[in-house]
């Protein structure tokens, strides 16, 4: 019996079972389903819920920073009393809770699930020509673990003491002492939630790695895999190596808070700095977990809309591998001010700068890909190009901070906030938007509305920069992160107008999601029907038409060449799908 589920084996297995088995109908179909495409949609809609919650929290914080003490419009009265006072204005401790929840939600419940849960699930089997994931049930379990962990995370808002206010980095001893953080229950729930969330990531990663290694269709060698698959595959390896360390560290916080252990307590012989080491040993690979898939999507989208092969396909793969490996030896760059030995901090500085080299290789390859291409100006292309430019800005500020002397000055200021929003929002999220527009026709069978798409792009692009660019200046002027009211510091009064600018930008950014959501929901139901291959793309997912049956491919596709054969000289059309043989007279870029 075939080991994998293809549409055929599937039909065979069904034969004689229940003749026209349509399984459970209605809502159950969307609640428990082992089809990787449905799971991808489950992840997508759940994360959209979280992005709305997390985004609203960010707006509440921005309001407070621009107009300290003024009641927050609209959202103010929705927040629990641990966060806002009666008139709907933020209390300082509540501000810290919002910082924590916003960071945690956006990293673990929006960026990761969208990059990995949605696109990993949707793309891997379709792109490698498999019928489903290696372990479909485990895949659905992964989704439910993710959902449960999200509920636990949000529940911490409503326990006595409220949500933790320790930041997404939850530094000990603040997080590990009930008397410091004031909310042992909230902090414990935070840890438990991340532990379960970690299990979800791990089960997902086991699936992705196994699927990519064992279920590629005939002819799909590793070096014929599309770059998004490579990126998610490498990301999954990083997950396997990084997430358990966070789980261990979080478990120790739970024990310190609830069972009286002293891992992070000096008076019992413990080490508060231990948390920082464990957290950042996870944390730095984590930021690559958040950027590698984004890089993969952008690489492919740039090639498709430049009608050119990806420049330096193999270099792209090797660069990602090098980034993944080096990512494990740079965590100390988050800890320069922790009192570490200067030689060690120099070593971390050098390794951090070295890791910028493969990042730069990728950037130049993206430019090489579009250079002299036959560029098609579409919404996904615009987001992909914006991704490259925003990533460059964020990467450059990263190099600044890698140098210890500079970082001692800018550490824990808004400069850091600017940096990671450029790489995470300008990088990961821009690429996610590109990917959503690009694969929307395959996911929904419909085309999105172009005008709304362009409005969304320009609003996002302009307001994103308006929000986050001034933060570089705020940081350099000395504004610290995680403060509830900048106006209480004399030295910051003169830069307060910049805070107002950031807030105006943030509101615009909030509004920019409206055309996006409207576009998505309208187009799912009312958009014009999409052809099977609207972008004239070469990879396998475009060979199946909507609705894609469970099992994906009616017959298992055979792959004849690499993924990006665009504008091949001597061919009539300007692309050659992976499952089509090249005519004898044509020589291909890659094999």
């Amino acid at each position, binding site marked *: 019996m075939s080991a994998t589920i293809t549409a*055929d084996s599937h039909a065979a297995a069904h034969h004689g079972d229940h003749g026209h088995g349509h399984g459970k109908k209605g809502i*159950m179909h969307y609640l*428990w389903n082992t089809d990787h495409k449905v799971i991808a949609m489950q992840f997508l809609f759940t994360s959209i819920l979280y992005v709305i919650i997390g985004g609203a929290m960010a707006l509440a914080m921005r309001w407070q920073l621009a107009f300290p003490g003024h009641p927050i419009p609209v959202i103010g009265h929705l927040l629990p009393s641990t966060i806002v006072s009666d008139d709907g204005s933020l209390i300082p401790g509540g501000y810290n809770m919002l910082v924590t929840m916003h960071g945690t939600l956006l990293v673990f419940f929006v960026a990761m699930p969208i990059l990995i849960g949605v696109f990993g699930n949707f793309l891997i089997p379709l792109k490698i020509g498999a019928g489903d994931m290696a372990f479909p*049930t485990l895949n659905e379990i992964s989704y439910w673990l993710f959902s449960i962990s999200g509920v636990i995370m949000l529940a911490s808002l409503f326990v006595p003491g409220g949500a933790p206010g320790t930041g997404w980095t939850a530094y000990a001893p603040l997080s590990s002492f009930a008397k410091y953080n004031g909310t042992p229950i909230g902090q414990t729930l935070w840890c438990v939630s991340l532990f379960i969330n970690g299990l979800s990531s791990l089960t997902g990663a086991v699936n992705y790695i196994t699927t990519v290694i064992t279920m590629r269709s005939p002819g799909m060698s590793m070096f014929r895999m599309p770059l998004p698959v490579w990126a998610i595959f490498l990301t999954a390896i990083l997950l396997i*190596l990084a997430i358990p360390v966070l789980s261990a560290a979080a478990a120790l916080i739970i024990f310190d808070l609830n069972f009286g*252990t002293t891992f992070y307590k000096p008076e019992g012989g413990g080490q508060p700095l231990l948390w920082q080491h464990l957290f950042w*040993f996870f944390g730095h690979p984590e930021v690559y977990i958040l950027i590698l898939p984004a890089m993969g999507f952008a690489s492919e989208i740039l090639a498709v809309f430049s009608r050119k092969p990806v420049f330096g396909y193999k270099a792209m793969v090797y660069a990602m591998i090098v980034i993944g490996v080096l990512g494990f030896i740079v965590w100390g760059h988050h800890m320069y001010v922790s009192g570490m030995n200067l030689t060690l901090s120099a070593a971390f500085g050098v390794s951090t700068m070295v890791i910028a080299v493969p990042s730069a290789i990728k950037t130049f390859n993206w430019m090489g890909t579009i250079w002299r291409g036959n560029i098609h100006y579409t919404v996904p292309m615009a987001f992909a190009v914006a991704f490259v430019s925003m990533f460059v800005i964020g990467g450059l500020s990263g190099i600044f901070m890698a140098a210890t002397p500079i970082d001692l000055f800018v550490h824990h200021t808004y400069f850091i906030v600017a940096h990671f929003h450029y790489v995470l929002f300008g990088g990961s999220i821009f690429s996610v938007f590109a990917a959503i527009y690009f694969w929307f026709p395959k996911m929904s069978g419909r085309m999105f509305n172009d005008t709304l798409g362009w409005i969304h792009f320009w609003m996002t692009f302009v307001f994103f920069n308006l929000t986050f660019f001034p933060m570089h200046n705020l940081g350099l002027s000395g504004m610290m992160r995680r403060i509830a009211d900048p106006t209480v510091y004399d030295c910051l009064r003169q830069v307060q107008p910049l805070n107002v600018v950031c807030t105006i930008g943030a509101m615009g950014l909030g509004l920019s999601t409206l055309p996006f959501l409207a576009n998505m929901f309208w187009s799912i139901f009312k958009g014009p029907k999409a052809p099977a291959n609207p972008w004239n793309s070469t990879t396998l997912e475009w060979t199946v038409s909507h609705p894609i049956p469970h099992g994906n491919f009616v017959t298992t596709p055979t792959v004849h060449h690499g993924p990006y054969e665009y504008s091949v000289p001597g061919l009539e059309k300007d692309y050659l799908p992976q499952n089509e043989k090249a005519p004898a007279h044509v020589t291909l870029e890659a094999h």
Partner: protein
Amino acid sequence: MSNAAFNDASLFHAPQEESHAHDSHHAPPTDPKICKLGMIVFLCSEALLFSGLISAYLVCRQAAGCWPPNLGDGIELPPMPKLLTGINTVILVASSFVYHFAEEAVKKGKSGAGWMLAAALMGATFVGVQCVEWTELYHEGLWFNKGGVYGSSFFTLTGFHGAHVCIGVLLILWCFYLQVTKRFFTAERHVALMNVGLYWHFVDVVWVFLYTILYLI
């Protein structure tokens, strides 16, 4: 290029609209090699979990200077029972071999259930002895919240490991049950047995590390 999985040609064409909510049990069984790889990847993440815990322990121990640490309250902290746990370690390691014999028996077409039961009992013995040891140490003034990081790390590390052993014992008993009642594992197909074995060997190897760092050095 690895795909033996797709060599089976199709017999039927897929219906165009097909969306079943509970397909997994109709799907053909997954190739044993794929299952094994999945297990190995999972165990890698388990290895990292223990590495995280062990490095936390080593960092605290390194920083303490002497071990058991001097907490400055004049209380003498008890040493760890090397001998009893040494014997216990031998039992646990031996159970890995016993489990291996179960697998070999199944591969030869025999039942192997006796070996499975023996392995499970040895695992249970290990847990039992650990419980005795926990109680003794507790009475000697060591617990999660007593004896500073010395107590914390000992109970946390052995606790995490003990939980893994318990899960392992339950899994082996489950295999035993399937084998006795349904003769579930055959020479040709015994994926679950093999994967439980991988897990069990892993748990043993972790214990050898833990025994070394917690008791011996």
